[in-house]
């Protein structure tokens, strides 16, 4: 039935659409035939020919109307009038290019900001991973004593060779690279060693060049590398001819075969990927051999479920368990869904997500301001077009038809805005990706279909919301008055002005919310930057090196090297003191279960997870951290001498309330469980982030712990010595080991690069740009609306001037209106800001205590509110100034003659 119906109707519809002239002609002919026959009949009844024709026409009840009714039955009329409206709309826009450009640009900025933010939010947390079919990707971990670890190369080989659940199993190891041919230019880089199928497993195709080949995992053929996007950008200026060229890594030439896409690069991620030669990787270093680990990823076969692969991998993992301990499930292989990482993001990611949400909301506010701007422009235009609308209504156009027409026009504007926004976003994608990836590795802005659709939907929704009011308003006409009155703006002016003022007030309110949010975050940032660190970071250089895998594998070798280096540095002119630590301030610390002797007798020791840092003798004095009691480490605390420890103030207060911890003992819960005697209490200072909560911390002599990492803090005598010493360090340390490259930094740079400042900076940069965008839009909006209302009131102002009002009085008249509107906006905005800042976090996420939250400033901070309000008021005044001046120069003669 339906199909048969379509069989008849579809050809008819198509005919009405595409053979429109023909159909129209037939309609005219059909009605003409009827009229002719009717007229003939009437003539036969004896009417005169004129009367007969008129009577025939009358019997039709309005020929054109009937034709229109016939057209309506065709069912394509809506489409037709839409096309007609579009054509007309385009013509109208072309006739006022200034208006069109201003509106399109305003909208483009607003929609663009949102498109970009959507792209970021999409990639950061709405996203399915950028990998191909990510639901089939899994991680394989090993569980040891209930802790998740990366597996060993042998476990990788076993899974790769024995499992049947996976299409691909790939592994990644880690490597440090010294990049550059000659010592003075070299640079330490994080690298990754990957099995050739690594990128294939993920489904990542290189931006340039190719993936690794299978044969490249053999010794002798592994002289190839793939570069990360940011390394390629920074070091090779995005030169595409890098493919096939040789670069020098670890003093060995290798060939660049590929460059990865931008979204796969992250600030702390590997910069260089090389093939993993499994055997030599597993055997590197003698002592560490048992500790060599690889990350394993795998891609499930399409028909294998996660739980199937789990049971299979668990069986494969059994061979690695201690046979005597088979009963306990202390060590086994586990398979984890890739998405798990996204379901339970680590604290840094959660923090970054917070920041992204904040910026996304501010982008929304910018869009609202932009839409309000265009809304008031449309309203003003609507008043100007009053006559046109009146004439069209008089000619028989219905109100609905007028609304449709006006809406079509504004929708056109918004769609143009959306298109320009996409172009703008495309241009800025690089900068935005860079900003965002500083905050959250892996966040990227990629122009895809989703971004495109969102931009379109936002434009259309905004067009509906903000085009409707002007359309409703503009289509409402009082025919009699409009056509009679020579000045088109006299009627309807007042309600429209009220609406426009309302929109301006709304803009000011939104601007206030945005500025307050920005101000609070900026003040938090400044507080973090200047927070009491507990140590003196000025004039302190830092030096670190990475030990090559092949040498310095024994802890004693590392210790000897660092002591020699420190000794030599002390002799460098300008150096005041040198302190050694495995982890300098702002770099965090390791943690372990420590057993702490209780201060009261007969109470068993407390066991707790505690942060600890290994430091050298001069460390605290170099940082200018005072010892509160006891002594610092001295040179005697080498491996041979008795084991000692120093605790910080918070530790002492927490575990030894009211007593002196000196003389008590602490020990690691796991081996080595040597008892260490507390010999001193040191003043608190921040170890990971400038604004972190102080927590118990234990220091061990670095000579006793022999950690794998070593860094040095070098205090120089004066700021002038900083550059001097820094420039000489690498040469000065050449005699210690000519092969090593010493990475230079400073404590101030460490603070600048600390996690929380790094996280906060992009949010503040983005909010600052959105805030300035909002201010500019408010200026444009206020200027436009005030100019318009001055023009509208020319007659009134003329009369006032003629009656003796002075220039000041007129300026005051205009200023008063804007100020009133602005104040209304400020009140609403303050309330809004007050409400929205309730959602601002006031504490960090996770143990690092870092992140984006209000720090050292309350959400009702009066200074921030005051400054934001003052800024907005001055912006409003500035934007009102020119129109007010113009009003005061109105010549009463001209204004009144205007009548």
């Amino acid at each position, binding site marked *: 039935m339906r199909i048969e119906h379509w069989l*008849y109707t579809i050809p*008819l519809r198509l005919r009405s659409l595409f053979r429109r002239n023909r159909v129209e002609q*037939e309609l005219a002919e059909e*009605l003409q035939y*009827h009229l002719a026959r*009717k007229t003939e009949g009437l003539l036969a009844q004896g009417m005169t020919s004129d009367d007969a024709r008129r009577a025939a026409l009358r019997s039709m009840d*309005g020929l054109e109307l*009937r034709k229109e*009714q*016939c057209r309506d039955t065709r069912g394509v009329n809506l489409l037709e009038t839409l096309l007609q409206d579009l054509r007309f709309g385009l013509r109208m826009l072309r006739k006022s290019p200034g208006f069109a450009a201003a509106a399109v640009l305003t909208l483009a900025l607003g929609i663009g900001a949102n498109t970009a933010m959507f792209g970021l939010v999409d990639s950061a947390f709405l996203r399915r991973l950028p990998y191909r079919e990510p639901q089939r990707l899994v991680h394989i971990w090993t569980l040891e004593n209930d802790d998740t670890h990366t597996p060993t190369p042998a476990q990788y080989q076993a899974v790769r060779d024995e499992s049947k659940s996976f299409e691909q199993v790939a592994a990644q190891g880690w490597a440090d690279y010294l990049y550059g041919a000659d010592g003075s230019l070299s640079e330490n880089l994080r690298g990754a060693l990957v099995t050739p199928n690594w990128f294939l497993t993920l489904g990542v195709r290189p931006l340039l060049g190719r993936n690794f080949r299978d044969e490249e995992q053999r010794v002798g053929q592994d002289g190839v590398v793939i570069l990360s996007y940011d390394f390629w950008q920074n070091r090779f200026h995005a030169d595409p001819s890098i493919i096939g060229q040789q670069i020098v890594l670890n003093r060995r030439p290798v060939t660049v075969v590929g460059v990865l896409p931008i979204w796969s690069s992250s600030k702390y991620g590997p910069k260089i990927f090389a093939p993993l030669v499994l055997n030599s990787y597993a055997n590197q270093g003698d002592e560490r051999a048992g500790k060599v680990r690889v990350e394993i990823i795998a891609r499930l076969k399409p028909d294998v479920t996660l739980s199937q692969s789990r049971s299979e991998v668990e069986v494969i993992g059994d061979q690695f368990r201690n046979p005597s301990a088979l009963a306990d499930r202390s060590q086994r292989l586990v398979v984890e869904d890739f998405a798990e990482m996204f379901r339970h993001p680590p604290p840094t990611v959660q923090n970054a997500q917070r920041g992204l949400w904040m910026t996304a909301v501010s982008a929304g506010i910018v869009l609202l301001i932009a839409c309000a701007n265009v809304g008031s422009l449309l309203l003003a235009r609507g008043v100007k077009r009053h006559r046109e609308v009146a004439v069209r209504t008089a000619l028989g156009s219905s109100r609905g038809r007028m609304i449709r027409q006006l809406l079509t026009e504004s929708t056109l504007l918004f769609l143009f805005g959306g298109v320009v926004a996409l172009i703008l976003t495309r241009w800025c994608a690089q900068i935005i990706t860079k900003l965002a990836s500083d905050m959250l590795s892996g966040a990227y802005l990629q122009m895809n279909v989703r971004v495109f659709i969102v931009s379109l939907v936002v434009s259309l929704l905004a067009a509906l919301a903000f085009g409707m009011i002007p359309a409703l308003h503009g289509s409402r006409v009082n025919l009699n008055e409009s056509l009679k009155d020579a000045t088109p703006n006299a009627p309807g002016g007042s309600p429209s002005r009220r609406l426009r003022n309302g929109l301006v007030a709304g803009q000011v309110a939104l601007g206030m919310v945005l500025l307050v949010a920005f101000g609070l975050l900026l003040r938090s940032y400044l507080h973090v930057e200047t927070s009491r660190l507990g140590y003196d970071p000025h004039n302190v250089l830092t030096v670190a090196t990475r030990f090559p895998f092949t040498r310095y594998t024994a802890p004693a070798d590392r210790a000897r090297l660092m002591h020699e280096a420190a000794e030599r540095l002390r002799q460098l002119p300008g150096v005041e003191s040198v302190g050694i630590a495995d982890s300098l301030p702002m770099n965090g610390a390791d943690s372990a279960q420590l057993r702490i002797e209780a201060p009261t007798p007969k109470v068993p020791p407390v066991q707790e997870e505690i942060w600890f840092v290994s430091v050298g003798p001069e460390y605290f004095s170099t940082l200018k951290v005072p010892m509160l009691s006891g002594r610092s480490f001295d040179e005697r605390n080498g491996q041979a001498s008795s084991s000692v420890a120093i605790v910080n103030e918070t530790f002492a207060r927490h575990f030894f309330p009211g007593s002196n911890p000196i003389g008590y003992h602490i020990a690691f819960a796991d081996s080595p469980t040597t008892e260490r005697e507390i010999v001193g209490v040191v003043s608190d200072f921040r170890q990971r982030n400038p604004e972190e909560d102080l927590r118990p911390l234990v220091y061990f002599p670095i000579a006793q712990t022999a950690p794998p990492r070593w860094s040095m803090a070098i205090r120089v005598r004066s700021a002038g010595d900083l550059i001097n010493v820094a420039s000489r360090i690498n040469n000065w340390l050449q005699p210690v080991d000519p092969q090593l490259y010493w990475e230079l930094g400073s404590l101030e740079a460490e603070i600048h690069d600390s996690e929380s400042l790094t996280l906060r900076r992009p949010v503040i940069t983005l909010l600052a740009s959105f805030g300035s965008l909002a201010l500019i839009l408010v200026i444009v909006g206020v200027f436009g609306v005030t100019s318009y209302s001055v023009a509208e009131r020319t007659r009134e102002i003329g009369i006032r001037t003629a009656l003796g009002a002075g220039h000041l009085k007129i300026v005051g008249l205009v200023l008063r209106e804007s100020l009133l509107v602005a104040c209304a906006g400020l009140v609403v905005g303050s309330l809004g800001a007050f409400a929205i800042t309730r959602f601002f976090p006031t504490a960090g996420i996770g143990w690092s205590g870092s992140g984006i939250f209000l720090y050292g400033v309350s959400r009702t901070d009066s200074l921030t509110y005051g400054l934001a309000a003052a800024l907005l008021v001055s912006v409003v005044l500035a934007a009102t100034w020119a129109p007010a001046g113009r009003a005061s120069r109105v010549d009463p003669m001209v204004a009144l003659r205007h009548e």
Partner: protein
Amino acid sequence: MSKPSDLVQGTLDLLLLKILALEPLNGFAVSQRLKQISCDVLQVSDGSLYPALHKLEQEGWITAEWKLSENNRRAKFYSLTRLGRRQLEKEAGNWNRLSSAISHVVKLKEA
């Protein structure tokens, strides 16, 4: 501006379908026939006839063809389609049910 004809809503469709079921006709002829067969009781204005015809055409119930009329002029002739015939049966059935129900009510004796 246009008053709906005095016909019961929807009955114009039924009338037109019935008239065209008898023989294909052009618009003018339909108007004449309407007056003639209903003995001038049913007044359908010439104006509302054409939108109604076009509606039936767009629904696929009648189809149009240009032919020479009885006075040798080109005119648009409408005829019933298969779909239209089915529609006519349906509407005629509806009408019979409705009119018998109404006449039944009207004939009720007052107590």
